[in-house]
């Protein structure tokens, strides 16, 4: 008979290194940021800051103006579009890759991983200058060759949103493909065999076997990707909002908006307050989502 208490103790013992590291490297920064948000740490009080209470939060509320609201909506739309596309495209590609008898599958998979292997900022730079550049980018060069007019890809908000989505998908799909592939591999073939014997079509097999089987496995990766997409800064910033290389697009996610309106002031107390508020916002969102899941 297992003793529940020794069970719990053993569990904590074995998990302790992992939990300890998480506590240090992930939880502590949050706590520290919360602490700084209560101080006046800024350029004028960089090393000698003192606690000032909720001043920064009061001031931060002014950042959440109409601009922030539209950035928030844009970010939600951005996350939904990206996640939907990622899941659908990854699933389709993985299903196709797993067709038996596709002999070059290892080669295809490796080549499709390239975007993931290259450092992100390099890729984004290549996209911005090599592909989307109005004068010399490949896309416009091809359009000219076809006799069409050049397009200013990044200079309007809608167009920039689409281009950022393309780049984000390019960067993120390899990971999703890898996770889904691993998940697909774990499904017991015998389920499919008996389903085929019963005469199920591909669609039915997918709906009733594949998707329920892989959902628990890909769930963690999907959740992490949702948060990562929501917090996405690099893609939007480097493509369209880098000071000195702005493209005229008004598309902001909440992090680029926060960056431009708060983080560049070097007022860490203030920026920390904003980070905490964004964190709480996301917590509320995910808590509500989790509650809906549990009530199903």
């Amino acid at each position, binding site marked *: 008979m297992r003793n529940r208490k020794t069970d719990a103790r053993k569990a904590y013992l074995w998990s302790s290194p992992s939990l300890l590291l998480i506590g240090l490297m992930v939880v502590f920064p949050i706590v520290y940021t919360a602490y700084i948000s209560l101080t006046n740490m800024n350029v004028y009080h*960089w090393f000698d800051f003192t606690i000032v209470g909720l001043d920064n939060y009061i001031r931060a509320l002014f950042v959440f103006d109409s601009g922030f609201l539209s950035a928030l909506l844009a970010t939600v739309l951005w996350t939904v579009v990206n996640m939907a596309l990622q899941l659908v495209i990854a699933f389709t590609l993985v299903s196709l890759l797993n067709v038996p008898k596709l002999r070059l599958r290892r080669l295809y998979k490796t080549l499709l991983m390239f975007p993931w292997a290259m450092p992100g900022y390099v890729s984004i730079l290549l996209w911005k200058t090599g592909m989307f550049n109005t004068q010399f980018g490949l896309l416009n060069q091809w359009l000219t060759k076809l006799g069409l007019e050049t397009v200013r890809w990044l200079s309007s908000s809608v167009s920039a949103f689409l281009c950022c989505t393309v780049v984000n998908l390019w960067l993120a799909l390899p990971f999703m493909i890898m996770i889904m592939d691993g998940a697909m591999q774990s499904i017991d073939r015998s389920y499919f065999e008996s389903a085929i014997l019963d005469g199920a079509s591909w669609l039915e097999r997918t709906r009733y076997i594949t998707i329920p089987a892989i959902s628990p496995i890909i769930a963690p990766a999907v959740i992490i990707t949702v948060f990562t997409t929501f917090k996405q800064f690099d893609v939007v910033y480097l493509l369209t909002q880098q000071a*000195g290389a*702005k493209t005229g697009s008004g598309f902001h996610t909440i992090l680029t908006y926060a960056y431009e309106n708060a983080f*560049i*002031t*070097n007022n860490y107390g203030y920026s920390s307050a904003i980070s905490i508020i964004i964190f709480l916002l996301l917590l509320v969102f995910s808590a509500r989502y989790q509650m809906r899941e549990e009530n199903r």
Partner: protein
Amino acid sequence: MKRLVSVLLMIGLLMGLTACGVSQKETANQLTIWHDKEDAVIAALEQALKQAVPELEIVFEKKTSLTDSLKLVGNDPSAAPDLFIFAHDKIGVFAEMGILAPIQPFLEDGALDQFLPMTIQAASYKGTLYQLPLYFETLLFMYNRRYMTEADVPETTEALLAYMEENTGRGRYGFVEQHSTAYYSAAWIHGFGGSIIDENGTPFPDEQAVMDALNYHARFVALMPGETEYSTVNTLFLEGKADSTIGGPWMVPSARAANIDLGIAPMPTIEATGKALAPFSGVQGIHVLKFAAEKKADAVKKLLSALTAPEIGIDLALASGCAPANEECYTDERVAGDELVQAMRTTAQIAVPMPNIPEMDVMWTVVSNLLTNVNLSHKDVAESFVAAKVQAEQLIGAMK
């Protein structure tokens, strides 16, 4: 069990191995200098210093994201350097953070007399000198002699506009520049007598001047490509698709490598105001961190004295085409013959050093937004300006 033990042993071994990376730098004659400059410049400095102060052991360390690291470790002697070489525009921020030591106490009287006044102005914040200037950069008007003859070189901006109108079209441009980047457009704003921020931290002190500059500049932007970034402008000029441009000295080697017959001319003047386009300049120099000033005062003093000598400036100019801060260097015949260096010295007389106050940090984004709105999104100048001023005041207020 045995496996567990061997695993733990391996971890311990690894820890031991990897932990042996901590260096001990304790000698009073050893100075560590951080920088992010190219090898040629640093090599020249190292050479010159080896001869001038052989008793000091000077270690140059290249550090990317130098400012971010300094913000972290600025007051931590075990992780921070003793000095660092960087542009002057951050001394306000670092001085307020309290990590910089004033330079004046280390220099003899009159050591800086021969330095270009613009560089001393750049290196001072709130009346204290925090940087020893070494060399500076500013923008120059460059043209491709194959397309723009000496006679064509515009002396006024009106002439430039006329030239652009005649020579732009079918994939070619009379003149290109990074029109919506704050650093470059400042030249136009200064030409109208305006400025981005004054010493007290007031953004756009002369509002009308800035709006006039924007309106005027927009006529030129209409004849330039929509992209404002470096790659586009650079490629257009280097491929011979643009006849002239405003760029920094860093463009010269690549222009020569691309076989462009390069000409350098003084900045055109704006007829309406009588002022020439006055670009920003960046002064590169060496700064001292507070604790180094206290603990290694002797060594720092020797180093800084050695760096005020004109020979250092001459070496830099010869090695890498830098424009030295010390005026004496320009009389050296080898330097006198360098067209580029002399052109920069001439421009130094009208150039405006980048403001080094902390408030300037946020102005880059504000001006960038303003320019993008006016030039790329074609919004109304007055409206965009009002929005920019509001944003600037908000951000500056948020800094405290």
